[in-house]
């Protein structure tokens, strides 16, 4: 359930992904109601896209240069069309990742996914008692752990995604040891975002600046220890790096000529939400910045108009957020995704400047 277009490794040197990503949230249905869920998914949610619609978006995205589909949710392993959309993505030569809570990783299911999934990302919030508390389930950790053997048996590469909070950061060494000890190839540490359900239930758990700084140091220590077998990725940006490289967050003053680059090069991550909206870079982005509403228009058809309107609005927003994050009194480390989604909902004067290079 993470937005991962920033290939952030410890140190904050982040940037648009090497491979452009179509992130897909086909459904908000989930067996759990996690306190930190930014999409507000849960057992009673019914918002869902049919597989044919998702496949159409995948086809358009592939033609636009996107190379990876990243399926999240809701719980993707509860989505009936999952294998259909993964098979379609594979037929187009795309890589695929699936993010799961680890409840439905039975051997038969994992064997079926073996040829369809390049990386299975499993959410892990800490040691058993913390994981279960945040997940609202006494069996969450037990199920996750039991399923790991099935994932390994199936031969699916996997990693863990850890949502960092004020309370669980002190267990980071445990999390890393658990991940590495179980054969994980990735530990992605993502600070809690106060959006969705977390905005109501976990306000007190947001990690403050000094916790982020401590985790930043710890992430390097962990990378040093486990880096040969497990990549440690921390989704934070260092202020001075942002100042020097605004392009990391689409805030460069000039915009490349769209005739010379693909849509995927213009926008490294697009997100398909369960209501049929396609938005830039992060789940929950204000609809003012949408690429399209699938109920009205196909993605491929919407792109030319988006490029001359919505995209410029998006770049203008990115520039304003860059100004904010680089200000002298800005935090040393920031979670760009959280900030830009938040600012996208702020109404006010929106400037549209076209300063395309070339």
């Amino acid at each position: 359930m993470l937005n991962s277009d920033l290939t952030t490794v410890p140190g904050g040197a982040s940037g648009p992904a090497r491979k452009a990503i179509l992130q897909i949230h086909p459904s908000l249905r989930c067996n759990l109601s996690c306190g930190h869920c930014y999409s507000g998914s849960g057992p009673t949610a019914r918002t869902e896209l049919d597989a044919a619609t998702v496949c159409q978006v995948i086809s358009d995205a592939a033609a636009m240069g996107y190379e990876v589909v990243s399926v999240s949710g809701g719980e993707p392993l509860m989505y009936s069309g999952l294998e259909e959309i993964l098979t379609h993505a594979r037929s187009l030569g795309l890589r695929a990742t699936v993010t799961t809570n680890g409840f439905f990783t039975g051997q038969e299911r994992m064997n079926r996914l073996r040829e369809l999934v390049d990386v299975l990302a499993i959410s892990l919030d800490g040691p058993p008692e913390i994981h279960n508390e945040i997940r609202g389930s006494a069996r969450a950790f037990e199920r996750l752990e039991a399923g790991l053997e099935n994932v390994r048996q199936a031969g699916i590469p996997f990693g863990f995604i850890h949502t960092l909070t004020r309370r669980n950061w002190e267990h980071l060494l445990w999390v890393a040891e658990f991940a590495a000890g179980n054969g994980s190839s990735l530990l992605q540490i993502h600070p809690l975002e106060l959006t969705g359900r977390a905005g109501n239930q976990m306000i007190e758990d947001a990690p403050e600046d000094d916790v982020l700084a401590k985790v930043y140091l710890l992430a390097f220590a962990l990378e040093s220890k486990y880096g040969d077998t497990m990549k440690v990725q921390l989704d934070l940006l260092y202020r001075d790096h942002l100042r020097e490289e605004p392009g990391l967050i689409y805030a460069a003053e000039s915009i490349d000529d769209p005739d010379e680059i693909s849509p995927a090069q213009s926008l490294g991550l697009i997100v398909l939400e369960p209501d049929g909206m396609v938005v830039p870079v992060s789940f929950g982005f204000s609809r003012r910045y949408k690429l399209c509403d699938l109920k009205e228009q196909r993605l491929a058809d919407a792109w030319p108009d988006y490029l001359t309107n919505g995209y410029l609005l998006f770049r203008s927003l990115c520039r304003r957020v860059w100004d904010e994050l680089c200000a002298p009194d800005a935090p040393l480390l920031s979670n760009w995704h959280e900030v830009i989604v938040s600012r996208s909902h702020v109404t006010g004067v929106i400037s549209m400047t076209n300063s395309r290079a070339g």
Partner: protein
Amino acid sequence: MADQKDKPQGSIEEALMRELRFGGIDKDNLKELVGIVAGFHKAGLKKFKVFPKGIPVVDGVRISGLVEASDANRILGEILSKTPRLAAVVAFPYGIPWPEIFRLNIDIGAAAENGPISQF
């Protein structure tokens, strides 16, 4: 109560976590550490360690990594200009068969309160 030096220390990561949890590193040092670590990373250092200095009685933090001679000047320049509370900077040749590689140790901690010491 057992003396601190009698406590089992565990790994470097555990020692660092202990310092971070129990306030062994103040906020200013923390910010400077983040800046140095970020600078190391941006300079392309893939492998370096961050660990408490002075185990078992911790009096600071050391960042240690290998740098190429061609990068050392730039990295040192950045660190010296952006980290006024340095305790020590030590660079020494990694040795044969890699004479162009240096190990760089950068210390931040209590010693900085007595004034910066730079050793080359």
